[in-house]
């Protein structure tokens, strides 16, 4: 192969096209995958936020209905108005296991202001008489209207309602409160979407000792020291690595934030996070959303391979076609001219150039044939040659 031949140059140009083509496809596919995975992550965050909100609303409605039903029960109403704790416990305790099975894990009665202490804890009846002094308590005492929302207690995060309880004369006799652990929401969300979720709580709003104690009670590993600013309150995946987060929960934007894509073994995930606020509007935690996009990634890789293969095949066929055309239209005819010219110089004056077409090379063939005839005519008139 001659490195300066047209054939080599054309081949090099086509190889350059192939490289650029394949590189372009790879870059395009990568860009497309990046865009789509970002879109999937953003969609997962939006979907999770909506679902979380729906579940919150549904559970608040459920607890409100239970509270309203209790308020209409004259025996319960009278027992609470009389501050007969034993009677109230007798009347309500049978209901608690059923409510707990429905997710209502916290149920309390509070005395009215100004002292506003816990009168009865259905989920821990021996403990009472303590004042909680939370946003919820202050708000309901101020407005005498139902207050709903999330509340981060010392050791956990729950969606709660607190509503006033009235006696037969319409006087506020205290408040009833119910709550559901937000951690259980994520398991419902996983069963509905297939994505994994993690509920992160800001340590600033929590009590270290209470978290350690509750970890013992719930027989969970004390993960307080796993992350500097937050604890993972609950998660739907056994993997800790997929919930890695280096940022500050307080700065997560309201609409959520798409985090980096990452690979764990053969699986590819996109991740996102959105803030979870308490009833007072503080960003006390965040919901981590992890979506497995392995199937999408594999489909993209398959498409990428097919496209690369098709490009290579198309350009290889194109190369063959171009080189075949060049050989037929140019190289073979130029070779013929070279052979005839050589033979004429060697003494074969009868060799002729056949003009095969009127294209550019054909015009050159015609010109060269005319030149050959003139040359042969000159030679035939050279005296030295005539004598031989």
């Amino acid at each position, binding site marked *: 192969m001659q490195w300066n031949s047209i054939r080599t140059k054309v081949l090099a140009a086509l190889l350059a096209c192939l490289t650029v083509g394949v590189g372009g496809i790879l870059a395009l596919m990568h860009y497309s995958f990046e865009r789509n995975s970002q879109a999937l992550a953003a969609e997962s965050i939006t979907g999770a936020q909506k679902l979380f909100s729906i579940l919150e609303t549904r559970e608040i409605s459920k607890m409100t209905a239970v509270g309203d039903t209790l308020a209409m029960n004259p025996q319960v109403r009278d027992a609470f108005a009389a501050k007969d704790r034993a009677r109230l416990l007798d009347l309500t305790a049978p209901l608690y296991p059923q409510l707990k099975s429905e997710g209502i894990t916290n149920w309390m009665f509070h005395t009215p202001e100004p002292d506003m202490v816990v009168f009865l804890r259905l989920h821990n009846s021996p403990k009472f008489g303590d004042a909680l002094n939370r946003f919820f308590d202050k708000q309901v005492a101020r407005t005498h209207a139902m207050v709903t929302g999330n509340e981060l207690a010392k050791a956990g995060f729950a969606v709660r309602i607190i509503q006033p309880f009235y006696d037969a004369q319409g006087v506020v006799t205290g408040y009833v409160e119910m709550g559901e652990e937000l951690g259980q929401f994520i398991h419902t969300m996983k069963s509905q979407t297939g994505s994994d979720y993690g509920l992160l709580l800001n340590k600033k709003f929590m009590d270290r000792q209470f978290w350690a104690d509750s970890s013992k009670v719930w027989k969970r590993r004390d993960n307080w020291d796993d992350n500097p600013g937050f604890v993972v309150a609950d998660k739907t995946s056994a993997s800790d690595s997929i919930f890695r987060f280096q940022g500050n929960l307080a700065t997560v934007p309201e609409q959520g934030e798409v985090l980096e894509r990452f690979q764990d073994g053969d699986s590819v995930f996109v991740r996102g996070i959105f803030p979870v606020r308490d009833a007072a509007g503080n960003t006390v935690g965040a919901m981590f959303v992890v979506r497995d996009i392995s199937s999408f990634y594999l489909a993209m890789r398959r498409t990428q391979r097919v496209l690369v293969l098709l490009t290579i095949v198309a350009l290889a066929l194109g190369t063959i076609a171009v080189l075949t055309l060049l050989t037929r239209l140019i190289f073979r005819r130029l070779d013929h001219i070279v052979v005839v010219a050589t033979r004429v110089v*060697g*003494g074969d004056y009868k060799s002729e150039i056949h003009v095969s077409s009127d294209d550019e090379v054909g015009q050159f063939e015609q010109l060269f044939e005319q030149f050959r005839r003139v040359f042969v005519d000159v030679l035939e008139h050279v005296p*030295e040659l005539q004598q031989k």
Partner: protein
Amino acid sequence: MSQLYEIKLRIEAKIQADKLDANEVKGKIGLRAGKLLAFISADTPDDPATVTKLKQAAKDVLNLAL
């Protein structure tokens, strides 16, 4: 007999011995040397430059050392 003519005879002898296409080989040598072999006769005067070119052409085309 000139040296050029002697070289021409050696080339023709080689072509005949190897049963090569005479027109093609002579053409290639003539083009490389810049001299038509048909013009070389016994009394063609020697020109050192042409002798050198013809020897080199014979070497390149026929691998004939002269």
